Structures are given as C-alpha cells and as structure tokens.
C-alpha cells in the first residue's frame, strides 16, 4: 500500500496559493507595474494554485470514501 502523493501536493499548492493571494491583496500595486505589466500576478496565480490545491485534495478524499 503506497501513500497518495496527491495529498501533499494538494496541501503544498493550497499553502503557496494562500500565501500568494494574501500577499497579492496586501502588496503595493507599484511592484506589478514594474514587473508584471500591471497584472497582479500574485493574486491571479495564487488563486489558480488554490483551486489546483483544492482539486488535488478533493481527489484524495474521493478515493478514501
């Protein structure tokens, strides 16, 4: 019986996503003008990672039940 790698992947991506979203909401918009063409890439990509993390966790849970 091997463990389900989707669990740690889900947890890590959720954690990184939450950090990026949190920082994206609190950071100065100036850094996005300098770097990412005005797009708040932390908020945007953090959101994507949160969704991906939750999806992985959902797949892990679905298998267990």
């Amino acid at each position, binding site marked *: 019986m091997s463990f389900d790698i989707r669990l740690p992947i889900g947890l890590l991506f959720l954690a990184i996503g939450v950090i990026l979203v949190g920082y994206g909401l609190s950071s100065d918009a100036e850094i996005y003008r300098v770097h990412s063409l005005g797009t708040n*890439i932390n908020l945007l990509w953090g959101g994507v990672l949160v969704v991906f993390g939750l999806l992985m966790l959902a797949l892990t849970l679905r298998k267990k039940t």
Partner: protein
Amino acid sequence: MHLGFVDWAIIALYLLFVLAIGILASRRTKTGSDFFLAGRSIPAWVAGLAFISANLGAQEVIGMGASGAKYGIATAHFYWVGAIPAMIFIGIFMMPFYYGSKARSAPEYLRMRFDEKTRGFNAITFAVMTIFSSGISMYALAKLIGILHVLDAPIHAMGLPPSAAFHAAIILSAAVVLAYIYLGGLKGAIYNEVLQFFLIVAGFAPLVWLGLKSVGGWDGIKAQLVPTYTHAWQGMAHASTNPLGVDWFGLVMGLGFVLSFGYWCTDFLIVQRAMAADSMGAARRTPIIAASIKMFFPFLVILPGLIALSLTASAMKGHVPGAVAHPAGVSSTVAQGSAEAPLIPVKIDSASGKPMVDSTGQPVLDYDLAVPNMLLKFFPTGMLGLGLTALLASFMSGMAGNVTAFNTVWTYDIYQAYIRKEASDDHYLLVGRLATFGGIALSVAAAYLATRFNNIMDMLQLVFAFINAPVFATFLLGMFWKRTTGHGAFVGLVCGTAAAAIHHGLTLPAGALAGFKGGWISVLHTYPSEMAQNFYTAIVAWSACFVITIAVSLMTKAHAEKDLEGLVYSLTPKITETTSAWYARPVFAGLVVLTGALILNILFR
C-alpha cells in the same frame, strides 16, 4: 536581488514538504527492493510524471531556455524529434523485456541477456555518466544562485565573501537531496519528482504568459526575429542555413535516432522509473504518459528563451544574432523594455573589459542568463519565490534521478557483482544508503569540473555521445536479434565508445581550438558547429557498435535459445493486453502521441 519574506516562506515550505515526503517514504522502505525499486508499487501516472521530472534537471530548464535564445524554436527538435519517438518506442517495444525480465537495472538486463563483462562495462560507464550529469545539474543551480544573488544577504550577514554563495548553494542543495534519498530511496525520489513536476509547471507557466503578453504574442516574436528562429525546419537542408549549424541528416540520425533512443530507451535513470511501476501495463504506459506531456514542454522551457531574445532584439534595435535588422512596428509595450538593460546581456571580455563581438561584428550574448533574467524581470516578490522554487525543484529532481540510478547500479551491478557477492538484503540496503553519500560527494566534484565549460547542454551531449550512443545498438540487437552474443555485444560496445573518442579527436567545430572541444589527435574535418560534431560523433559510435557487434556475434558461439526466453523478441510470448481500456493500450496511446508530435512539427515547420 532582494528576496522578501514571502519568497523565503515559499522556498521553506517547499523544502519542508520535500523532506516530509522523504520521511513518509522511509516508513515504507524496509527491504532492498523498496529502496532500489520502490517495491514495484508505483501507479502509471506517478511513474510517468517522475519519468519527465527525473530528466528535467536545472541544466535542462536553464539550458533549453539558453538554447531557445541561441538557436530559436529549432531547439524544440530536442523534444519533437529527439525525445517523443524514442519514448513511444521504449513503451511499446522495449519495456516488455526490461520489466518482464525482472532485472533490477538496465546493466543487469545485459548480464541476463549477454554476459558479465558487458554488464560490467555498461555499469561502470553508466555510473560515471550519472555522476557527471548530476554534477552539471548542481553546477547549473549554484551558478544561478550566484547570478540571482539569492544567498548574498545571509552570506554577508555571516561575514563570508560573496563567492561563498556558490559553495553554500552546492552544499545546501546536495544535503536536501541526500536526506530524502537516504531516507526514502527510489520511492522518496519518485514521489518528490511528481511534486516537483507540478512546481516546475506552476513556476514557468506564468512566466511564459507574462512574457508573451509583453512581446506581443507569437506574432510579436516573429516580428523581431529572422524566420529561421521561429520555424523549426526552415533552412535544415544545409548546416550553413540554420542556427543549429546542423544538416537534416545529422539532426534526424544523430539526435532523433542515436542520441534520443540511446538516452530514452537505455538510460537507467529514465528506465528505472518505469521499472518501478506496479504492473507490466503500467510500466509500458509510463513513457507514453510522459511523452504526451513532454511534447508540450518546449512551450514551457524554450519559449522563455525566445521571448528573452525578442525583447533583447527590440532593446538593442536588432543588433543581436537572430534579430531582423530594423524591426518594423515595434509595439509600445516592447519599447518600454528598451530603457532597461537587455534581458540577455552581451558577454564582457574579462581581459579587456570590453563587450565581446564575433567575427561578423555581432555581439556575443550570455545566453545562460536568459531564463534567470526573465524571472527577475517579470516576477515580483511572491511569484519570484515560486519561480525560484521551480528552479530548485527542477534541479533536485534531476539530481535525485541520477543519484537513485547510481545507487542501484553501484550496489547491484558493481558492489554485489564484484566486491561482495553473497550478503544479506539488509547489507545491500545499507550499502545503497551509504552509496547516496558517495554519489553526492562525487557529484560535487563533477560540479566544480563543469565550471570549465560554457554551454552546459553541449557538454552533456558530448558525454552522451561517448557513452550512450553505442549502448543503444547493443540493446537493440540484444532485444531483437537472438543471434547476438555476449562477446559481440562487449566488443561492439568497447569499439563504439572508442570510435566516439577517436571521431571526437579527429574533428573540431568551426572556430574552436584543438583540445577539450576535439581535434586532440589531429584535425581531419571541421564541423560547422559543436552540435553537428556531437551528432556525428554519436552516429559514428552507434554505427561502429552496430556493425562490430553483428560481425563478432556471427564469429562466436550463439547462446542457447532456452536461456533467452523473456529476453529476446522472437523467443518471448507476445503480450496481449486485455486488462485496460482500448485507449489506454500502449500501441494505440503511442500512436496518438506520435501523431501529436507530428502535428507540432508541422505547425512550427
């Protein structure tokens, strides 16, 4: 560069998870089979993603970006010609013998099929090659950490000179890989490789998206660069009319056949992932699943280099290799970038302190900086942490792939075969764990050796040409021609490797000095580029091994047919796969992926 608290938090989280997976895997690592073969318990999709990651070292992520900037989209040949067909081939045709023979390693298959000396030769050369690969990966990471000034603040705080960052990066990264392989063995490495795969995608996808937005999409790239940089097949008829400096025959035979099949079909670092799969069906699907994803990787790792070159061309008003002379219709977003330093800087001559120019007056660019500078330009604090984590992940997966393969080959094919034959499973498990230390220590030494080379990819191709190219002829003949004998295989292998060395010694790439780059015997022929020389070295090595193996086999006594059952195509019952759905069967899935690669070639012709 200043890393914020968020960046460090993301990197620290990643390291925590990597170690945790190592510890989790160690709880299930009790026997040699667990440590070296992951207990043959890995599902196909996990093995497939690990198959990609193990090959995706830092040298690939940085090197492919650098090659993308140096040679353009033709770099994608390393995927669409130089990887996908071979990955399909091993899944459909070769995996039944690797997995079905119950060999624990690729060299061990050679012992079962041929004899001890063939195994020994392959095991030793392979062990040397894994050490080099892992050292190069380590060097790439350490150099990158120096360039990005990631460790400068903590190094300064400790009162050490800035050069200590290079050494600290090598030691720290090696220690983490050491820990999770020591604990979890192949299982720890494979499960981490899956995590690392997702991180690499997560770190690079937004970079490509922002980069494309900045340059004005694919059309924006085409507006800045000459057509041979955006068309993979244009100018391939002659070496002088394409950026690679290779003709189509050298490309298709050298890269697409010899180097590609030599690497993807015989390299144990790759094959080991599939051999860890939980069933024959899963083992055969592993490389095909990997190929279905791998064919899209040029967009992730090569495109950043092309974007960087386009932005550089725009900033330098077309005065870089590959740029159109006077770009028309420069968009306003691109023009903004021109006020900053170019993404790919001009190399500075360390003696005179002046920018370097080539014989045609074009500036010489430092392509290895393309990807790191893209990260710095487009990622603010936060995303930068994720981007660095992706680089770290690629480095660790590549290194772990080498170290796990080294452990197995060292323990089973060298230690058990020649040093201590009869010992308990516990003893070999301990030897494998200790080999992790030895392998990593040697990799560190190789990393310092790698500082002597400029383009990392070219050096890697050179090493592969010497060692891998002849090996594929041996496996091919061994699996598909029952008359091949052990003496034939061994003499063929030795002659193939010797032929590679002699060819390298007699030829030189244009503009290079005799020595490390070739021509150390005498210069009989000059190739238009180092890549062309490497490809033809491989062709010569393979051909020599193929012909000599056949000739010597015919002169020596054939193996008894009953000893070859399960090892040779004609003496093994055909596998009729009925357990999985029709779309998951290797032949069908393989053809679909192959068609996909063909379509990509046509789209970017």
